């Protein structure tokens, strides 16, 4: 399952980041590592982007980028 498929209020664990270069770098900077818990907080009023809570960091990501993160429940 991918991160963009989760709905607000749910939690999941990062399994793998399927990306290279700058985007994977950015995701790692904010703590998207295997085994880390991610909580989906809310969608923007226009649906995209989405705000997540990752290890006490509030991060907003577009669907496009969230698609790169594989998660398990």
């Amino acid at each position, binding site marked *: 399952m991918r991160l963009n498929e989760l709905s607000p209020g749910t939690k999941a664990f990062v399994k793998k*980041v*399927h*990306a*290279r*270069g*700058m*985007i*994977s*770098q*950015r*995701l*790692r*900077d*904010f*703590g998207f*590592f*295997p085994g880390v818990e991610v909580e989906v*907080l*809310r*969608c*923007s*009023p*226009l*649906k*995209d*982007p989405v*705000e997540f*809570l990752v*290890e*006490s*960091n*509030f*991060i*907003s*990501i*577009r669907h*496009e*980028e969230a*698609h*790169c993160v594989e998660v398990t429940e």
Partner: protein
Amino acid sequence: MGNSAELVVALAGQPNCGKSTVFNMITGGRQHVANYPGVTVDIKEGVLSSEGTRIRVADLPGTYGLSSFSNEERVARDFILHQKPHLVVNVVDTSNIKRHLYLTLQLLEMGAPVMLNLNMTDVADARGVQVDPKVLGERLGIPVVTSIASQGKGKRELRQALKASSPSKPLVIPYGDLEPFIARLKEKLAQACPEWRFPLRWSAIKLLEQDESMLQELSLCGKEGEEVGELLLSLKKEFTEQHDEAPEEHIAFSRHLAAKELAQGCVITTKKTAKTLTDRIDSLVLNKALSLFWLAGVIYLLYELAIVKGYELTAYTWPYLAAFRSWVASLLPPAFFYSEPLFRALTLSVVDAVLSVLNYVPIFLILFACIAILEDSGYMPRMAFILDRLFRRFGLHGQSTLPLILGGVFVGGCAVPGVMATRVISDEQARLATILVVPLMNCMAKIPLYTLLVNVYFTDHKGLAMFFISTITIIVALMVAKILTLTVLRSKERSPFVMEMPPYHLPTLFGVGSRTVERTWLFVKKVGTIIMLVAIVIYGLTTFPGLSENERQGFESREQALKNSFLQEIEENPAGKPFMNDSSAIDALLTYWDSYQNGIKQVRSKEAKKAFLEEYRRKNPDFFAVVLPGRNTDAKAVQKAFKVLVSERGSLQRSYKEEVISSSLLGRLGILLEPVTRWAGFDWKVNVSLLSALAAKENTVATLGALYQPEEGQEGAALEERMSSQAKGFTQLHALALMIFMALYPPCIATLIMVRLEAGKNGTRWMLLSLIFPICLGFLFASGIFTLGSLFSLTGLQAMGIFYILALLGALIFSRIEPRDDTPLAEGR
């Protein structure tokens, strides 16, 4: 730098760790503090001395890591590598220490002499996070100092610790399965490039991370470097095949584990707060139904405070500026009968230009204070979060919201702070697109022309016309942004949208105040000086080459005729005696009158007025009798004749000015352009006023005012009346075309300078583009409206409606176009 009396200290840290506040605290200097990821792109320096030692403190840009993917990271890393600071103070947010240690580890790994500063311990306390600085210091082998910079706590300790040194032995992080690969690469590197100037292990790790700067270093090593490169490729391939994981992923994950382990060893979490205050605020502020309401409220408040209230404030400050102008005018050589000495005219036009900028200072103070509050509070990333999707459709970015608002999305903004605010946009393509469309917004200086035209030509539909003009600009700007991103900006770098939503902060008075003053001063300094130069140039262009001898003689004889009729009028009058035998007396009286008029305006109190009158009476009793005749009937008669003379002289002055402008270089250009601008319905007068508006748009109405002189019996009529009675052929359609052209008018000089500055590389080219494309686009639209409108004999209102619908449709179509090379960012890079 190696001087023993001077030490260089660098401040490094992740965004939102309070680094800028720490910088302010230890240097006591003014510095930018923004609660927005990565605002400080330049390196700022402050100097402090401590017991005879000068310490230069450099504030590095906030970075999450030290790769070379982003500009900030490159800047920060290169500073540490090449400037070799005596100490690197790593500021961390104690409440979020695990993430911040991720950077600390990378700093230590590259062998930088690090001192750790555990900042924001108050926030950590509130969240129930306690860090033992002693344990942490021992485990890392470096000094650790705690502080609460927002309250000024820890200042002495930090300043003292700056002089001390720190071990610069690179930290070794265990990379597990990757270790043998690192060892092989390190060995090869040492052997192939003996002159290598960076720590070997660190370099090997960076190479395996695919670090661009390090790869570049390698390519400088010639043939041996290529061999290392080949080995690197095969090692990467081998590792990826063996472990189903790229080396850079493995490296980052190992660092993450190391930071986690480190944090576990020295952090005690006393309470588990389920929801932080920030999260609770966000659930209100970013609420689906309410968020747009809050956003509209914030925008409304911004306009109301800065533009409306700021404008009201200028009513109080303007008299001081006007007094300054009068004071300058009183020092200059007096005006001639119908013309002015060159020095006087030139100086006054420069003073006027500078004052027109200074007049905006109250607005800018409020505006910059509001921006600083928005930045520090943490609301800015929320604005981006709310509107990103809309803007992205047009190639812009959520972070384009603020620049567009400042530029004047509705009515009344200023492109200068708008362009300045684009700095925070992380996506290069969207940033340039925003810089280029911000000037299309409705800045304050465009409004006088709109008001003039709407009042004259859309008298019955004022509201509708203003609605049209305030919304059409954003519609067109979005389309233009999309066109730009599909064409000239196509190859510009795009960045993923991964944005931190920092915790809400209460802005501090010092932080907001100092930044407000700093930015306003920057604006005044930069813009003020340029405006002066431009005013001189525009003066030259609207004055030279001047009138021919013949034309001049015409004015001379009109002057003589006016004087003669004045003399005739007062011939028999005893009060007129002083003027009869002295030919220069009339000129002297006029000068006296001008300076009296100039002076009386400044008089505020009753006593001052008395003294002022006494002074003028003493200066010349005869003249005083003419100016203020009292009950003296003879003097009254002279006064009457004199008033006629003054008024006649006024029209002579104005027609002289018009004559000079129309025969000037700019006037000739306006006439020359007329055949082309006819398509848009602009005559040469409009052309000249538009050309002079290039310096500052405020000029448009002023120039039109000089060109539409009051006619017989129209003295004192407002420009509105003069235009509607004199510009007979000028219809509603003309007005609409002119308004559209003004809406898309190229940026003023001040904005152009900012565009050049903020666009970065090739700034001059972007500046020229932002000058030329609005002219073309505006002219295209204006001539389309005017020519087609005339062809189908539409009224201005009909043409307005049709244009609006077409623009909306166009925007809708453009929002649907997907960029061609829009490969999913993920796998694409």
